[in-house]
């Protein structure tokens, strides 16, 4: 395939509504998950900055403070969001992308 043909193929794909829909949905997923992660983390930093006494409150009769599960939650939410994205991408987006490429076989 010449460079020109390759380029034409890429532009044909760009105009395929299925490609546009796939990229739109995949991007929406990425940006929403990114926004959730940034919100959780920056929210946590602001809690640390402005709500120190709240984080220092013991839970019930224990010594453990509220801040500890919240901090661990930030770490675990990072792992969980990563897992959610991988699950969605593996199950939905990859199959769609493969079908799209098959139809635009060179």
């Amino acid at each position, binding site marked *: 395939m010449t460079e020109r043909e*390759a*380029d034409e*193929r*890429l*532009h044909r*794909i*760009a105009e395929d509504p299925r*490609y546009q829909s*796939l*990229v739109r949905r*995949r991007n929406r*997923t*990425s*940006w929403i*998950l*990114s926004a959730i*992660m*940034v919100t*959780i*983390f*920056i929210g*946590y*930093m*602001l809690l*640390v*900055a*402005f709500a*120190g*006494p709240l*984080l*220092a409150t013991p839970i019930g009769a*224990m*010594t*453990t*403070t509220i*801040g*500890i599960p919240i*901090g*661990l939650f*930030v*770490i*675990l939410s*990072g*792992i969980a*969001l*990563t*897992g959610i*994205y*991988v699950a969605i*991408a*593996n199950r939905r987006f*990859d199959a769609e*992308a493969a079908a*799209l*490429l098959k139809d635009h076989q060179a």
Partner: protein
Amino acid sequence: MSRAPARAAMLLAAIGSPGIAHAADGAHSAANWPAIITFGIFIAITLGITWWAARRTRTTSDFYSAGGGITGRQNGLAIAGDYMSAASFLGISALIFADGYDGLIYSTGFLVGWPIILFLLAERLRNLGRYTFADAAAFRFGQAPVRLSSTFSSLTVILFYLIAQMVGAGQLIQLLFGIPYTYAVGSVGLAMTIYVLFGGMIATTWVQIIKAVMLLGCATFMSLAVLYHVGFPFDALFSQAVAVKESLALKGGASEAAAAESALSILAPGGFIKDPASAVSLGMALMFGTAGLPHILMRFFTVPDARTARTSVLWATGWIGYFYLLTFVIGFGAIILVGANPAFFDSATGAMLGGNNMAAIHLAEAVGGDMFMGFVSAVAFATILAVVSGLTLSGASTISHDLYASVLRKGNPDPAAELRLSRITVLALAILAVALGIAFEKQNVAFMVSLAFAVAASSNFPALLLSMLWKGCATRGVAWGAAIGAVTALVLTVLSPTIWVAQLGAAEPIFPLGSPTLVSMPLGFLAIWLISRFDRSPRAALDRAGYVAQRVRSETGIGASKASNH
């Protein structure tokens, strides 16, 4: 009490380097046989792997990216290995040992960059690039300006990171193995040169994987030993730590109320926050800097395709998160098992033997005896070796692939000459790293890792993101914008309290925040946007015309570089 500055210095030391200031008086400066034997075994295995890898390293693709033949699970471990430096193992556990909760705040910052890399960069990066992140950042642009700019920012990041690791390595090895600083730094330089020079990315990846497994194994064992010691429920870990801190404070002559208060402070944020702006700024550096570290980004080219790149981030995030949970237990365990045991402290001065960053090493002795402590020391050494190897390889690919092959030879280099040049660069970087490690022995290098993160977040990250996702982005904008972001991060750091006051002795900082990222990262984005926006040159028209094709490639993987077969 002037706790805040002292804490700030601690925090920076934690991510900067093991930062062991007074190494000579430790109990472990004498030859430590279990450590030497374990380390000998590690060296023997890794040299064996290097020999095996050297026979498989024939092309530039093998050398830079292991031929793209690493699996997702392997790459996940290798990435985690790159990220879990001795600084995070010893530094963060020491920080928790000293201040408790504040260490957890750092851990969260280091972790949350990974999801961002996955959501926004990893797959597109793999689809567009071959060896370095600049392949993707410069994809549709004029090669020379963008690559020159990315070489500048990448080498800045790599050198600061490398100096911090080398100085930390020298001090740690001097302490653990009882050999002089210069030899310690030299031996790190020598071992890493052998791995990278002969074994390229294949050896570097496997050294990283082995070290990651050893480190995770050690940390798991130590955490389980701690949890076994304190018993059930989980709350016991914290209540016993508070009890130890309280009795220590009472012994130190504090009143009962003051002792109780200072003991409880380990369970909540303390001196971490001097001002909210600095906290958010540092948080941004940690979160987005990860997405601009060249030695991390290059790992996405060692896997065959975007799907594997995606899987490797999931593995990496899982391992890194697990590791930070372990360091949390280890830090609190050290308060209980090391803090309460006078044997680990100098009887005259009350200081921890070997310096504050030795908490995890002492804990290893407390839970597993001399043998296990030797093993953990050797793992710490192996960790440093693996991290500097990755950094060096990344610096070498920047110079030979971005600068030589893409700029000087305009993308048509003689492969043999390129491979030769990358090997010469490895040698040169190793010599430079050793020389800088020796030159900076007595300097405070603690700020260098956070500076590397700030530069990466302000230059490489905006350049990569905008070039992949914004049509209007143009050559001039990316090249100059990234450079402006990098230089701003550097200059603001010099003017910040960390250098202007602490190092240069001025009374007041010119730039008030501890980290520059809150200003330099938005400025990096803004500069790329503004300069691109007003660029009406023919080159810019070409750049914009190339967007659609690049975007389709990045989203579908059409034309992505394939794994080479062996």
